[in-house]
């Protein structure tokens, strides 16, 4: 590698990051996905809030994060869009002739996806908090922000949605086709878990614990997790285990996508 003249410096990681940032913010679908995710999360939390009974024993934080069922699909779509966008419209030729080392692009995409997903998740959390204020008051559900367990659920809700976005990016970058990536994402994140839940057993419970949807445990409060761990025939993951599983999926998918990107032709 030669050193370029000072007036003509070349590709650096921060420049690739800036380029990917420009790309993400310059298509409208990004904004719509973010707004749609926040609206979906808050709407679901509000809808579920209508069934809150004063004697249910439910925690206030669990109601706020209950929109995760839809919100996870939103950040999954965000990740899939970033991961497949280059390939579905052919801009990968432009991108990878500018950055022939290729991997910095994937890493930059992972970072900006995580950042946008983080902002989206915080937005969804705030919106869900606000729309359920009345319902929580009427149902007697309190949210004590000095309580460690409450804060854990709220913070982990954000972590979960960010993790799902990176998993979406990994699947997208690996499969390169938006529809295939989205279907795969929904299958491994939601559908398989539900199918396996029909038939509890040591094997199915273990597989369920190892699927990325296991990360949804991050959104559950301590009482729910204890109840889940008491009934499972598979590994007991505790409050953090599901997050670790999700994180490993995210990292594993990125490594697989990076391998494909680095070792194979871009035709």
């Amino acid at each position, binding site marked *: 590698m030669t050193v*370029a003249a000072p007036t003509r410096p070349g590709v650096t990681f921060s420049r690739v990051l800036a380029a990917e940032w420009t790309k993400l913010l310059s298509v409208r679908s990004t904004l719509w996905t973010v707004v749609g995710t926040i609206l979906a999360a808050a709407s679901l939390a509000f809808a579920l809030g209508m069934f809150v009974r004063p004697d249910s024993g439910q925690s206030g934080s669990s109601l706020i994060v209950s929109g995760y069922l839809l919100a996870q699909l939103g950040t999954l779509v965000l990740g899939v869009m970033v991961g497949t966008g280059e390939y579905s419209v052919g801009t990968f030729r432009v991108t990878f*002739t500018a950055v*022939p080392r290729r991997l910095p692009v994937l890493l930059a995409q992972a970072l900006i996806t995580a950042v946008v997903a983080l902002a989206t998740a915080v937005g969804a959390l705030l919106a869900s908090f606000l729309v359920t204020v009345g319902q929580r008051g009427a149902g007697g559900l309190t949210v004590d922000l000095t309580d460690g367990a409450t804060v854990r659920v709220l913070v982990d809700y954000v972590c979960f949605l960010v993790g799902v976005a990176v998993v979406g990016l990994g699947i997208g970058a690996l499969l390169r086709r938006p529809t295939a990536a989205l279907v795969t994402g929904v299958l491994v994140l939601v559908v398989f878990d539900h199918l396996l839940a029909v038939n509890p057993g040591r094997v199915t419970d273990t597989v369920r614990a190892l699927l990325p949807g296991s990360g949804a445990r991050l959104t559950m409060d301590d009482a729910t997790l204890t109840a889940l761990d008491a009934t499972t025939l598979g590994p007991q993951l505790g409050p953090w285990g599901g997050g670790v599983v999700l994180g490993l999926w995210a990292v594993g998918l990125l490594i697989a996508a990076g391998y494909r990107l680095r070792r194979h032709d871009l035709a």
Partner: protein
Amino acid sequence: MIEVESLTKRYGTVRAVDELSFTAHSGAVTGFLGPNGAGKSTTMRVVVGLERPTSGTATVDGRRYADLAAPLHAVGVMLDARSVHPGRTAFRHLLAQARTHGISRKRVDEVIGMTGLESVAGRRAGTFSLGMGQRLGIAGALLGDPGTLILDEPVNGLDPDGVLWVRRLVRELADEGRTVLLSSHLMHELALCADRVVIIGKGRLLADAPVQEIIDRSTGAASLEDAYLQLTADSVQYRGRSADDSATTPTAGSTR
């Protein structure tokens, strides 16, 4: 200078490029010709590092493309005019490209001006005609003020004014000492702007010589087109038939 040496690219059992060697020199426009499926685009993709050669080498100024620290400043590439996100404006498309190399907004505006896209720079690329897409692709190739340009069919879809503009542009770029490798199917156009032509068929080199020499060498050829048709007669893989000919079987069918 682009040097391609004994380049072979195989996809499974198909040899898209077969032991191809040629050089595109600096200060000259090198036309790159061949029938559909001859391996022109594959060769160009290998040169710019999108694909790896099965064997052989392709270098720009003596270095592999993937080893360039600032590829946009070394090589300007336009492979496909449709390589734009339809929802992104022309300006943002170029800005994203520029940012990978820390190229200024001023330069982005400059290449927009050079390619005559000022009035549509803020429009989403999905609304562009093929010709405007070509201009945008050429703008991207010029961004880094590179010493080498690789343009795959840059005049496709351009209006007569645009064709003339590209002809003058590549001439100027070569006269400034740059290397220009340009593929096209428009023989008359290439005869006007290329110094030298490299003709390939079925992945193999058929001819590599100055335009006039290629015409002189062919028997009875009056133009580059005649010479080209003679040279590639045995290498055409996809051939249409005339309408009143439809009852007869084609003589040279597809080999794939």
